[in-house]
């Protein structure tokens, strides 16, 4: 059997982009993310907004975010607002506890438009556009 011994941590952290249509792009933030990922997040957000597209940040498969990533998310929302482009977050309520906790305890749940599913988040940014 091919495999790793128990306890080995597989680094599956990734930031992926899925272009839904010319007007909306999903940023998938999978795995653990901290200060190391923030520059990448900011860069992708900047690029998407430059294209004139709305942003959906997908936290469904996120297992960990630290405060610098939260700052990155909040800045992404502000940048989208400045350009009058849509911004939404998808985070299912049964997602990773570590992510739910920091968002709840920092009060960012109220500062970010959070939706249960990716479909709802995409629909929300599309509704903003029309």
């Amino acid at each position: 059997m091919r495999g790793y011994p128990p306890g080995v941590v597989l680094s599956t952290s990734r930031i992926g982009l899925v272009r839904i249509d010319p007007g909306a792009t999903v940023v998938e933030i999978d795995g653990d993310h901290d200060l190391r990922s923030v520059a990448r997040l900011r860069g992708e957000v900047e690029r998407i907004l430059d294209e004139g597209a709305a942003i959906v940040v997908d936290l469904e498969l996120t297992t960990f975010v630290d405060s610098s990533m939260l700052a990155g998310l909040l800045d992404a929302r502000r940048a989208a607002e400045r350009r009058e482009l849509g911004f939404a977050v998808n985070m299912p309520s049964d997602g990773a506890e570590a992510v739910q906790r920091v968002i709840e305890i920092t009060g960012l749940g109220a500062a970010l438009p959070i939706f249960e599913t990716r479909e709802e988040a995409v629909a929300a940014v599309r509704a903003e556009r029309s």
Partner: protein
Amino acid sequence: MSSSDLTIELPARAENVAVVRHAVAGLAEAVGMAPGQIADLKTVVTEACMNAVVHAYDEEPGPIETHVHRDGDALVVTVRDRGAGIRPRPDTSRQSLRMGLPLIAALSTSFELSGALGQGTVVMMRMNLSSNGDEPAEPATAPLEHGARLSMPARGLVGPVLSRVVSIFAVRANFSVDRLSDAILLGDAISAQGADLFADDTTHVVVDEVDGSLKLRVGPLREGGGETLLERMRIPEIGGSLEGLADAVEVERDGDGERLLLKVSGRA
């Protein structure tokens, strides 16, 4: 070093924080910490390490040392750097929300921050193994809405501390100069005459200002201590009596011993 001690030292670089996070989470799992607590532990450890990465060394290389040990039903995690120490800095970048420390405060069972300019920073965080311990402990006594509650060593400190606190409350209550010195004298007298009458090593005093008067509650005194103190202060050599300085004197008794209740009004 006990079986659940762990020490990790590595360069203070952002990519190393995940190493500490996973190592500490692995230990937490091994000692049976509840999953919700492990989630919080990962956050507080990350924030403490990131603080060292971002603030400790000003681009210079330097270490982060993390130590974890079990203390009863909790893990105690200490994150130490050898950097510039805690420095007040204006928020010149928008890189952070300055949430690191508030997150540590909110998610840990308790935490301590220490350090000095040029001597590095130490963040010590305690996390209970189960979340049951998160409930705030019932305070032993009801919180005060006004006034002050002081605890101090029965010998030596009562006089110097009590007379200062009494004088502040007396000034606040617009005491006349005469009554102010009476109030201070009262504090000094209790400590001078009562040092051997206190029941415990620690003396508790509640000072409060009510309608221009000061109320003091001093104790616990040992059995008969209240009466003895009043008796001693009737001796003319000390310049009058407790009753002369205070407008009302009462001895209260309960299971813990005796307490002296005093009232001094601001005007003669």
